[in-house]
């Protein structure tokens, strides 16, 4: 196993953190959706996406000497509707403009609704997916097309939800395992989302991880959240909770294909979190990345 890189999900405050602790950040994930303005399907042909050139150039500059991955929301692969080809083209353009994505991740959630009255109706939040053959076929066909367009490795991320879908044909880990088995994509494992789903009455994270083929895991997300109105939110408002660190320490060394450990925080909490605490979070992620390699070496030595 190669040592996984330590990284951040890029936001407008990231340059300040990179200036504070440049050597601690080896990887950046960037959301193309946040580097353009999308004027929607009613915009004239070729004028729908307006990149924010200054922000794109800044990402490209900071990606120098680091690995860079794209991390999208907008394609909503499980939606029972055609792939948004204009957005695929825009993602490919953003990859080229920022120096090339080593891999590209999307969410295994529903963000766009197929019969919403307008072509790109937003669902408002990531909604859960029915895990069955029909959904698998939809996602699989779009992943094939996306890989062809982007020319890089694809990952799908487990989402957070408040309302599990009853009576599924497959569990979520089984869905991920099948995607990997059929050579379609790897898994972007968001450990904080497992906590969110557990806290809101959804799943047992350990049973989830026991069911997931750990060979599929190529990137891991760490993040923190908070309680609101009796539910635990994936707000990216805090440092990583201890429960998530414990999961990471137990399970990440068993993921032989892990390439990056990425911390997500929402920029509006940047001042509250503070640079020293964010620096310590990155240092702790480095100890975790070191442990992934050391534990494997000790296993081989034994």
């Amino acid at each position: 196993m190669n040592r996984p890189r330590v990284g951040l999900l890029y936001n407008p405050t990231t340059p300040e953190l990179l200036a504070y602790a440049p050597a601690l950040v080896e990887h950046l994930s960037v959301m193309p959706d946040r580097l353009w303005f999308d004027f929607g399907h009613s915009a004239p042909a070729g004028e729908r996406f307006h990149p924010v050139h200054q922000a794109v150039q800044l990402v490209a500059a900071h990606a120098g000497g680091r690995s860079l991955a794209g991390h999208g929301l907008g394609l909503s692969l499980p939606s029972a509707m055609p792939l948004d080809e204009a957005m695929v083209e825009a993602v490919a353009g953003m990859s080229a403009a920022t120096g090339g994505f080593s891999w590209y991740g999307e969410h295994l959630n529903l963000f766009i609704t197929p019969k919403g009255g307008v072509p790109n109706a937003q669902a408002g939040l990531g909604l859960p997916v029915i895990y069955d053959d029909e959904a698998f076929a939809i996602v699989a066909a779009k992943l094939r097309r996306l890989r062809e367009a982007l020319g890089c490795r694809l990952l799908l991320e487990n989402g957070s939800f408040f309302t599990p879908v009853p009576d599924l044909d497959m569990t979520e880990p089984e869905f991920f395992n099948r995607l990997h088995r059929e050579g379609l994509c790897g898994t972007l494992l968001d450990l904080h989302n497992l906590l969110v789903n557990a806290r809101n009455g959804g799943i047992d994270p350990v049973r989830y991880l026991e069911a997931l083929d750990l060979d599929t895991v190529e990137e891991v997300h760490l993040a923190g959240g908070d309680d609101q109105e009796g539910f635990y939110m994936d707000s990216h408002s805090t440092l990583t909770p201890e429960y998530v660190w414990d999961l990471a320490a137990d399970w990440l060394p068993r993921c032989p294909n892990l390439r990056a450990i990425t911390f997500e925080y929402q920029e509006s909490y940047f001042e509250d979190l503070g640079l020293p605490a964010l620096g310590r979070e990155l240092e702790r992620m480095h100890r975790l990345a070191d442990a992934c390699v050391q534990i494997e070496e000790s296993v081989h030595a034994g």
Partner: protein
Amino acid sequence: MLADFQQALADLTASPELCQAVRDDERALVGYELGERERQRLLGIARHPGMAAACTVYRMNRLAPLAMNVRATLHALGGAMRPQVHAYWRAHPRGHAHFFIEADRFCGWLKERVAAGDDMPREARQALAHDHAVVQAALAASMTQGGPMPA
């Protein structure tokens, strides 16, 4: 069919009223073309306690472009803010991914309400005029590809 299931799930998330209607009488789903298994899944979701949180997060996300770009207007509306925003969402049930377009549309809609006779405090009208001008300038800047990083 799956497309109708997905749309119904999104509609439930956007509407606590529809959730309650479905909980009261499953015939509230009659407008969607659903298999029996899909219908049962939606009923299970509508009855799940987490649906309240999903509806709350939906509203928070829908409010985000307004809270970020027309904050002074929302503040000046005071107690009228909630009914006005909900009326706007009924008039425009789908948000726009471009936050400045969404905020511009809200400002335009609110101005039409004032012109049609809605009572609005003077300071709210002033805040609306100012916020709308700022939003329109930001929207114009985004068209020239030089605007700020989108939220």
